[in-house]
């Protein structure tokens, strides 16, 4: 029996294990939307296509599955660009389905035509234009394979209207065979052996763990590795949660707003073991000052990440989980009282920690750090937290001690304001029973605020905690530090009344203006089985510290 392209698409998604997609309809995809009415796949109607991609991304980060979204041609497709770039920078598996004008019209400047393949080529892992319905099933199979394997990433599939309408027999391929795409999973034994020898010899080793540990589900292996050899761990923003943030070996985040102890440890270590991290400039600071005395082992699935920004002594291309497993096996045979061997190094780190701990002073006005700390305490670190971008993001990274992988959803690479709320929606869809909180800035939240209608429509109990400083705070901080306090266009003089705004959308709005109101507000919000906006009116000109100015080495931190 022949099926239409629309039916084939949805059945293929079903065979890939997709039960939910995020989307927004339009003329070019009306055939797919028609077929959706007869499909078991759940469709979440967002209010802006950017939010569809971020929601699919939040769904993917929190669950580990590939997120899927569906949008129409032209403006629908162009609205996905920021979402694609966000997912691409953070290596998140997505399949983004865009409508396209009919094959005969492509290239004619037809109504709602956009060359979305051309526009998104630099921010997708791969993309396809399906020109014949017979290629559709095979293309979907490949798209999911590429998105979810190797270094994950977003894949775009452009679907012309006539291809969706056309019919053919439906045969879903069992497997893919792609000549040009064979990611390396298994680490090279010889390299692993060399790394192992170096690890045993090191006096001041340090693990620098990034988002790759989370995407390869290697947290357990990493934790075993660190614990067995008593090696301290610092995380990138993307890696937070892959090692328990409350563990005594945890140094918290490193880099521009990293902890003093983490940045000092990097500067003084004699062996840096980078796992699933890519030496981003926000992490390294001035490259010459980054781990200047250390040999570097770099474990990464993406060969292009290795020796891109920094010279590496022992590169190991492979999946973090596989490589760590192999290293752990070697270690188990090595007997040694590692805690005492490391005593001096760990004591030194403890001393750094005690000299300059993360700190703030809670006086009359609510401190944003206090809000984050209380959210952490009240949720016992069990919530899924998303963030927006700016100071809110950095305070969340510093004061919410992530202990489990996939509990922090944040736009690390692109730094996309407006990411957090739709990402929280995606996570709430993946985990209806969990507490999901977007820790937001008053600026960022307004970039996808329209999604309050989505949470209302689907009764999603997403919580939003706005650290309302009436500023584009992070930019104001830079203006304060590096531009003589010339606050050019960073004051948000006018914002909506967020409490009333919540109510207008059928959600609940709560406001806290005094420190003593913070805890009751959080507790109340968490007890309401609906979407809640918490508007925390916080200290306006609080800055994020420590801070390594752009271009300075990590050891030159500005402290409070």
């Amino acid at each position: 029996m022949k099926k239409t392209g629309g039916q084939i698409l949805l059945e293929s998604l079903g065979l890939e294990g997709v039960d939910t997609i995020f989307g927004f309809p339009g003329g070019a995809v009306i055939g797919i939307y028609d077929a959706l009415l007869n499909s078991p796949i759940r469709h979440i109607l967002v209010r802006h296509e950017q939010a569809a991609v971020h929601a699919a991304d939040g769904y993917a980060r929190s669950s580990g599955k590939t997120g899927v979204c569906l949008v129409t041609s032209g403006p629908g497709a162009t609205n996905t660009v920021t979402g694609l770039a966000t997912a691409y920078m953070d290596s998140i598996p997505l399949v983004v389905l865009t409508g396209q004008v009919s094959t005969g019209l492509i290239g004619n400047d037809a109504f709602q035509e956009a060359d979305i393949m051309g526009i998104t080529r630099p921010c997708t892992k791969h993309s396809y234009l399906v020109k014949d319905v017979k290629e559709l099933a095979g293309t979907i199979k490949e798209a999911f394979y590429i998105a979810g394997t190797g270094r994950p990433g977003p894949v775009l599939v452009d679907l012309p209207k006539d291809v969706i309408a056309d019919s053919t027999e439906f045969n879903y391929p069992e497997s893919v065979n792609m000549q040009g795409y064979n990611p390396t999973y298994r680490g090279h034994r010889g390299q692993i052996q060399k790394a192992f020898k170096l690890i045993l010899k090191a006096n001041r080793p340090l693990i620098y763990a990034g988002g790759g540990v989370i995407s390869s589900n290697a947290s357990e292996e990493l934790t075993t590795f660190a614990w067995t050899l008593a090696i301290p761990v610092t995380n990138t923003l993307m890696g937070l949660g892959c090692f328990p943030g409350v563990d005594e070996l945890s140094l918290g985040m490193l880099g521009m707003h990293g902890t003093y102890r983490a940045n000092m440890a990097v500067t003084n270590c004699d062996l840096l073991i980078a796992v699933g991290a890519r030496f981003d400039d926000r992490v390294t600071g001035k490259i010459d000052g980054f781990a200047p005395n250390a040999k570097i082992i770099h474990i990464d699935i993406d060969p292009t990440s290795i020796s891109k920004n920094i010279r590496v002594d022992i590169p190991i291309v492979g999946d973090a989980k596989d490589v760590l497993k192999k290293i752990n096996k070697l270690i188990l045979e090595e007997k040694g009282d590692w805690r005492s061997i490391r005593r001096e190094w760990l004591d030194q780190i403890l001393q750094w920690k005690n000299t300059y701990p993360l700190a703030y002073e809670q006086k009359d006005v609510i401190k944003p750090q206090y809000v984050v700390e209380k959210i952490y305490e009240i949720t016992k670190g069990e919530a899924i937290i998303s963030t927006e971008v700016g100071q809110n993001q950095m305070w969340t990274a510093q004061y919410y001690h992530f202990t489990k992988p996939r509990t922090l959803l944040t736009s690390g690479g692109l730094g996309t304001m407006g990411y957090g709320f739709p990402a929280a929606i995606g996570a709430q869809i993946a985990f209806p029973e969990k507490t999901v909180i977007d820790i937001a800035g008053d600026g960022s939240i307004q970039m996808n605020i329209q999604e309050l209608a989505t949470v209302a429509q689907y009764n999603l109990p997403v919580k939003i905690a706005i650290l309302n400083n009436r500023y584009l705070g992070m930019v104001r901080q830079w203006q304060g530090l590096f531009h003589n306090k010339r606050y050019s266009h960073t004051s948000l003089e006018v914002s909506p009344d967020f409490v009333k705004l919540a109510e207008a959308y059928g959600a609940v709005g709560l406001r806290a203006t005094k420190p003593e109101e913070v805890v009751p507000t959080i507790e109340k919000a968490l007890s309401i089985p609906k979407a809640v906006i918490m508007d925390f009116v916080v200290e306006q000109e609080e800055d994020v510290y420590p801070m390594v100015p752009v271009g300075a080495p990590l050891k030159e931190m500005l402290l409070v």
Partner: protein
Amino acid sequence: MRHTISALVLNQPGVLARIAGLFSGRGFNIESLCVAETLDPSVSRMTIVTRGNDQVIEQITKQLNKLVDIIKVVDFFGSEYVDREMILIKVTAESSSRAEILRITDIFRGKIVDVTPKSYTIEVSGDENKIRAIIDLLKPMGIKEVVRTGKVAISRGSKGI
């Protein structure tokens, strides 16, 4: 350093755009690029000549390898290989210089592929030095136009890439 890189790529629309984007997006330069079908019409072979320090070249080959539509990448640098380029030169041919041009063409094993009372068009192929040499020799006669194919390269020895 200048490197000559060979890549086997799937013969699909968009491949060239991906490769061009890979270079332009990172500020890498392409000196020449030559693409055509292989014996298998679903696969094309590209010869890319580019310049960069070791780190840049390493990135280029890794990034090329990472593209889904690229099957294989070989950097010929430091290995034994043959490279050739073909060039078409339209040169002013006055009666006084016609004999000299023919002689030069002959020495370089070139061919005259078009003749007018005022010009010759010469086809020559060879390695870089040879191409440079013939251009230098013909310059005084007045070169009207030059078209170069860019290099193609193949490894020495019996094995393919």
